[in-house]
């Protein structure tokens, strides 16, 4: 606990209890805004969009000593307050109180990278001009020291007329001052007259003059540059890139297996225990088979999904992802895209929803739209349960490349490549037709390499686990219950009929002629319908259907599936899932980001057509081959 006796201004004028203090965090991209935000709010945060625009709004809460709560607002990263991009417009509107439904913040934390102060300080003049109480937090204090830089915060505070503090958001250094500021208890130096500066060179000249006596710039980031010599080496660079991609996939598919087996055992044992403890009624059956079986078969995939998010988190936080974007830029340009599309597309391997939000960093509207439209073709984590189940059921595990690559991981990798190629081909078509654009620019700042912190990775994983479990607890639970009921009515002689004669079975058999050419029967048909809500639901659906057949239940999902699907049908099912747009959340976020139904409907249409035709061809080819 920090000692607050040194700040006498703390208590006398406590703010009225009418509403919580609102403090906005602003700063340039890569200055550590979000790290500070996460550090202060932990898990007490929520993400939404600003009304009418595609800019993400993050609001969180932090509790100070004495149980005082403060609302924190993480604003988009900006280099200036000139409203030229959507991000800058939003930041400006929020700071001037012109954002509808959003009161002007009570105070600001301007976070700047202390190792790049000559560039970043230019933002201070327009921000301080707003006249709000502002704390200038110079981040990355640890790196500044390590590289021999020096900072006299008191001198700079005098020049700026605002309190200045050195912090390290990643390591929690210097946060006492930030907390004191949040509670409204930091001494403010005498205000100074700041110039109104319009063009960038003048801003820079001002920043250089102001920081002249107070700041000694650090040496260039030697380590980052040495690492870039390796990671961007003409031969070693692409090789390391390929190794990273293969290593990530191999560890997701092999490394996650023991964990998944553990969760699976836990789910099935607890379900069985529940079954023995409760009276033998229809309600118990609904609970054990419908809820436990349906939701449980999806929850099993939590470890695998978290592992994928862990790797993406490490790549992003370490700074390697920006280098990867650079390496692939030329290749992406061949398909009409650019290096910046790579980061959203890689995130789409985890989930298309954050990927579509991440496209905001692409300034070019057409590039951005193309990236949004192809993102759901990337193999998202919701496809993993389906792929894992089908591959495990039909493909025996054998080593292919010694211990490095087995048949199952290779099949999985193949599906990932397939989705990627389909995405690139689609981008090519879109960019040479409805989204044709003149040459686009690619500017990117490469952040210094950093060790990812456990805390930031842990927060990400907790957040993802929450989202996944919430989905399992809402969408998947609802589908599981409805399906279980449809599979058990109408009753025949007071007992549920065999599933073929139930409502669900009837629906399945109605669509069977449509999907029979793909090699699917009516049970798969029910799964395809329920998976329109979310892809992984098909696993739970099959779990519920087979859960009703005593014989299949004991044999497990994999062997039950082998009875219902030929190997050729299995291939077709994999291809269908590789291309189909079965995700309500993605359609909803595309509608929100593109401002209408036109693009999401186009996306749904082309992906469904691609899935059907792809599965049809795959089934024919597989029948000939096998």
């Amino acid at each position, binding site marked *: 606990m920090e000692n607050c006796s040194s700040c006498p201004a703390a208590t006398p004028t406590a703010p009225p209890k009418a509403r919580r203090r609102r403090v906005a965090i602003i700063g340039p991209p890569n200055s550590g805004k979000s790290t500070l935000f996460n550090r202060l709010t932990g898990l007490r945060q929520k993400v939404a969009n600003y009304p009418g625009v595609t800019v993400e709004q993050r609001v969180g809460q932090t509790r100070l000593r004495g149980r005082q709560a403060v609302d924190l607002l993480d604003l988009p990263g900006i280099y200036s307050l000139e409203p030229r991009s959507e991000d800058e417009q939003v930041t400006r509107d929020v700071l001037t109180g012109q954002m509808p439904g959003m009161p002007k913040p009570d105070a600001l934390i301007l976070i700047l990278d202390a190792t790049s102060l000559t560039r970043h300080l230019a933002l201070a003049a327009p921000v301080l001009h707003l006249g709000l109480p502002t704390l200038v937090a110079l981040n990355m204090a640890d790196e500044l020291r390590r590289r021999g830089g020096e900072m006299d915060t008191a001198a700079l505070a005098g020049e700026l007329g605002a309190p200045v503090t050195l912090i390290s958001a990643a390591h929690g250094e210097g946060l006492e001052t930030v907390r004191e500021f949040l509670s409204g208890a930091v001494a403010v130096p005498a205000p100074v007259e700041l110039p109104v500066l319009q063009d960038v060179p003048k801003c820079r000249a001002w920043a250089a003059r102001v920081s002249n006596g107070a700041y000694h710039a650090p040496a260039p980031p030697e380590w980052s540059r040495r690492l*870039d010599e390796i990671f961007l*080496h003409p031969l070693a660079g692409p090789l390391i890139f390929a190794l990273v991609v293969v290593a990530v996939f191999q560890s997701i598919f092999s490394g996650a297996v023991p964990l998944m087996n553990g969760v699976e055992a836990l789910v099935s044992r607890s379900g069985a225990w529940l079954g023995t403890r409760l009276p033998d009624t229809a309600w118990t059956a609904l609970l054990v088979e419908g809820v436990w079986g349906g939701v449980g078969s999806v929850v099993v995939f939590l470890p695998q999904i978290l592992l994928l998010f862990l790797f993406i988190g490490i790549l992003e936080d370490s700074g390697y992802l920006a280098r990867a974007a650079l390496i692939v830029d030329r290749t992406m340009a061949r398909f009409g895209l650019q290096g910046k599309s790579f980061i959203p597309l890689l995130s789409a391997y985890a989930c298309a929803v954050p990927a579509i939000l991440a496209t905001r960093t692409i300034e070019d509207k057409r590039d951005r739209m193309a990236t949004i439209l192809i993102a759901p073709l990337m193999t998202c984590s919701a496809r993993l349960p389906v792929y894992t189940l089908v591959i495990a059921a039909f493909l025996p595990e054998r080593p292919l490349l010694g211990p490095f690559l087995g048949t199952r991981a290779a099949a999985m990798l193949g599906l990932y490549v397939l989705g990627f190629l389909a995405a690139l081909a689609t981008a090519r078509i879109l960019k040479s037709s409805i989204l044709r654009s003149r040459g686009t620019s690619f500017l990117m700042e490469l952040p210094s390499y950093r060790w990812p912190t456990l805390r930031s990775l842990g927060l990400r994983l907790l957040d993802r686990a929450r989202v996944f479990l919430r989905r399992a607890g809402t969408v998947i639970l609802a589908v599981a219950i409805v399906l279980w009921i449809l599979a058990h009515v109408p009753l025949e002689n007071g007992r549920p009929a065999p599933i073929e004669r139930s409502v669900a079975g009837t629906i399945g058999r109605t669509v069977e002629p449509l999907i029979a050419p793909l090699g699917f029967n009516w049970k798969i048909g029910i799964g395809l319908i329920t998976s329109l809500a979310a892809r992984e639901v098909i696993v739970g659906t099959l779990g519920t259907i087979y859960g009703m057949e005593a014989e299949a239940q004991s044999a497990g999902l994999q062997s039950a599936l082998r009875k219902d699907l030929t190997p050729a049908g299995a291939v077709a099912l994999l291809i269908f899932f590789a291309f189909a747009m079965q995700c309500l959340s993605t359609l909803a976020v595309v509608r929100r980001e593109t401002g209408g139904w036109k693009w999401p409907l186009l996306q749904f249409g082309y992906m469904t057509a691609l899935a059907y035709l792809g599965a049809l061809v795959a089934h024919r080819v597989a029948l000939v081959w096998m």
Partner: protein
Amino acid sequence: MQLTFNKKRPAPAATLAGLARGEHGILEAFDLPEDLARRLMELGLLPGVEVRAARGAPGGDPRVYHVDGASIALRRETADRVRLRRP
């Protein structure tokens, strides 16, 4: 690489793209649309500063430029239109 074959024509202006790896130059002006030039300036590429060419993607495009301790990646088509001060 821009070499002057024809002595009658004026020598082509030195540009960022013309720097070899490890070479540096002083930035002079942009032959770019204003908003793009502004973005470059916000990233630290201002007239008068020293820029050093570093490694880039395989094939050399886009390439990384070091300025003020920061690393900025640009495509060749952009770097071609950033003029350097003549030595």
